């Protein structure tokens, strides 16, 4: 039954395979040699991905299943490009870190993400999907704090549930259609919703999002760069492929965009604030998937591309601050722009990009999704997304940098971040500006041909007014906007407090009830035992010995009787 027919086009090596095999040599190398090797490996990975042309490059039969681990088209390539780019940037950013487990986990994680986007069938997709989870959790655990240890386990549990949902959906889908090919899921019923739910957990769609803001702020400084780039964006990719035009996603996406904004107001930890803005930004992409028009799908893919780069700049900037000061809360930071000016300026490039200022990358991608809503005359969605846009600038562009780098002097006197961190931020920041100034480069590899001009007068007027007057609001309300030393409840409360409390309550009340039932039953059994003991016990009637003489008499009577009967 194991017919293995390899149909691999000559000369194409699966980039994920290359990276995973290359990872095995990391523990053998040390110090400078290992740093050179890691950079070389990530650059070769980038090169193999960018060399990939559309087409089916690898497929084989295994146990009667048609597996296609190497399907590339324009949609998968956009994502593979940016995943490989961020792998190089993340490698440079983490060059100083001496932790083989983290490096290997990051590479296996990146390889799996590219494996997901090149997967042409659902089984391959599922395998890489789960590998992503297993590799990425180490980027959280290797922070080696009690908090990261616990957060990592919660991360693992949530993703295990999503994996089971996805697997159940795939099994149902296969049994109903007889096909494993991963294309648009165009059937209703449980299979559709199970697969969608599995994807939505990874896309961090509320209320299934809390794993992200719970775990990412606890990750290692360098691991957070990979985390912020890969998991949610592979989920956006699979949604783009499997569920374009699903109306539910339009509304969920718009709610997502605002959910992140509301919680970002309340956040005090700088990386938690940024994590909430991942949810907000992925909201635009999910809404774009839901609208399903060519411009909306292009917008989602473009926004995923720019988002990975500017979010990396922001997480790298916040990570550099944490690395150099040891503090991560707005209430403990402030006034450090004099000491970390380059970190501050590079961070601001990321902040202007996520806020969609003209000439920065977010402007050419985010306005595309918003424009898609305008083309479809979806007024409410358009207003919600614009509201979220204002909120993004308010927090990521104003609140976080103001209270971290400026504001009141916290007394911290950190040194500037190490050169490799600044270089990694610089490369990502370069792409943020480059794409903003020259969007045609990004538009040239979007899934469908692009007929869209971001720099129309209307867009410029609208965005500039929206953002600058949001800024005015910020400076008027600045007294109320500083961080507060508090945490906010989110849906993770359900499995961090409500469920443990419920099981505790069940155990206690259930225990009492069980004891009552047990004593009732035992009472009955004791009764039976006593009854038996009364008759059969040593003093019981039935335990008395019978005299043997009477036995002999009765035998004689029976014998005499039978003799009598014989003669009759």
């Amino acid at each position, binding site marked *: 039954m194991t017919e293995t027919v390899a149909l691999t086009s000559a000369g194409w090596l699966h980039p994920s395979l290359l990276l995973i095999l290359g990872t095995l040599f990391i523990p053998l190398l040390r110090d400078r040699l290992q740093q050179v090797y890691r950079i070389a490996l990530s650059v070769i990975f980038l090169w193999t991905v960018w060399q990939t042309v559309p087409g089916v490059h690898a497929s084989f039969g295994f146990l009667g299943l048609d597996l296609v681990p190497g399907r590339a088209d324009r949609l998968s390539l956009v994502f593979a490009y940016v995943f490989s780019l961020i792998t190089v940037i993340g490698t440079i950013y983490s060059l100083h870190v001496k*932790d083989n487990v983290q490096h290997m986990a990051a590479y296996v994680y990146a390889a799996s993400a590219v494996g997901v986007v090149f997967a042409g069938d659902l089984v391959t997709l599922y395998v890489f999907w789960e590998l992503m989870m297993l590799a990425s959790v180490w980027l959280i655990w290797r922070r*080696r704090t009690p908090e990261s240890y616990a957060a990592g386990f919660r991360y693992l549990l949530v993703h295990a549930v999503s994996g089971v949902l996805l697997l159940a959906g795939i099994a149902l889908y296969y049994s109903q259609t007889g096909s494993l090919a991963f294309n648009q899921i165009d059937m209703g019923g449980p299979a559709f919703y199970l697969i969608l739910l599995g994807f939505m957990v990874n896309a961090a769609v509320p209320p299934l999002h809390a794993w992200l803001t719970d775990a990412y702020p606890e990750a290692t400084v360098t691991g957070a760069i990979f985390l912020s780039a890969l998991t949610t964006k592979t989920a956006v990719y699979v949604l783009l492929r499997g569920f374009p035009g699903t109306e539910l996603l339009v509304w969920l996406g718009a709610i997502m965009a605002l959910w992140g904004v509301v919680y970002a107001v309340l956040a005090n930890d700088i990386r938690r604030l940024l994590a909430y803005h991942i949810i907000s930004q992925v909201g635009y992409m999910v809404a774009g998937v839901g609208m399903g028009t060519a411009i909306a799908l292009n917008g989602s893919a473009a926004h995923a591309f720019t988002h990975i780069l500017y979010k990396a700049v922001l997480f790298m900037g916040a990570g550099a601050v944490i690395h150099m*000061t*040891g503090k991560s809360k707005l209430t403990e930071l402030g006034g450090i722009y004099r000491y970390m000016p380059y970190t501050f300026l590079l961070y601001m490039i990321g902040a202007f990009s996520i806020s969609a200022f003209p000439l920065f990358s977010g402007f050419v991608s985010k306005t595309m999704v918003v424009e898609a809503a305008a083309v479809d005359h979806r007024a409410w969605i358009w207003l919600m997304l614009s509201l979220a846009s204002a909120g993004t600038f308010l927090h990521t562009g104003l609140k976080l940098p103001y209270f971290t780098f400026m504001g009141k002097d916290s007394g911290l006197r950190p040194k500037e971040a190490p050169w490799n961190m600044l270089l990694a931020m610089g490369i990502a920041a370069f792409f943020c500006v480059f794409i903003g100034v020259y969007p045609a480069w990004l538009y040239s590899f979007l899934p469908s041909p692009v007929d869209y001009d971001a720099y129309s007068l209307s867009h410029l007027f609208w965005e500039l*007014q929206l953002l600058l007057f949001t800024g*005015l609001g910020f400076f008027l309300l600045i007294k109320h906007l500083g961080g507060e030393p508090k945490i906010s409840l989110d849906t993770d409360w359900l499995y961090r407090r409500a469920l443990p409390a419920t099981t505790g309550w069940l155990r206690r009340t259930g225990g009492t009830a069980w004891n009552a039932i047990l004593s009732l039953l035992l009472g009955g059994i004791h009764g039976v035992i006593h009854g038996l003991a009364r008759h059969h016990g040593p003093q019981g009637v039935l335990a008395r010995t019978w005299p043997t003489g009477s036995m002999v008499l009765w035998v004689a009577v029976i014998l005499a009787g039978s003799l009598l009967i014989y003669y009759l």
Partner: protein
Amino acid sequence: MGAFLEYLVKRSRLLSVLMLTFMAALVVADVLIPTGYGRFPWDTIGGFGALYGFVSCVLIVVVSKALGYAWLYRSEDYYDKRTTADSEFSAKSLADEPSDNGTRGTS
């Protein structure tokens, strides 16, 4: 670079005046120059972006803070109160490994 930024911060009053002038000019330009879009009723109202941006900002802050104070804010050790056994276990098992991607003290 730090010195240059300090120079700018010292002149923040001048910079804010310049910025406010630019913002006023922007609104005036939006009122005067028609942009050609008419897909939503507000597309043709000059300066609507400015109004929407300002209102959005205030709305987001007020609604979020209200939600925070009324419902969502908790003390920072809210989740730690009941997981001490778990934390002790992990702290003990991790204690012998020094962190090398953790944090560095300020110098």
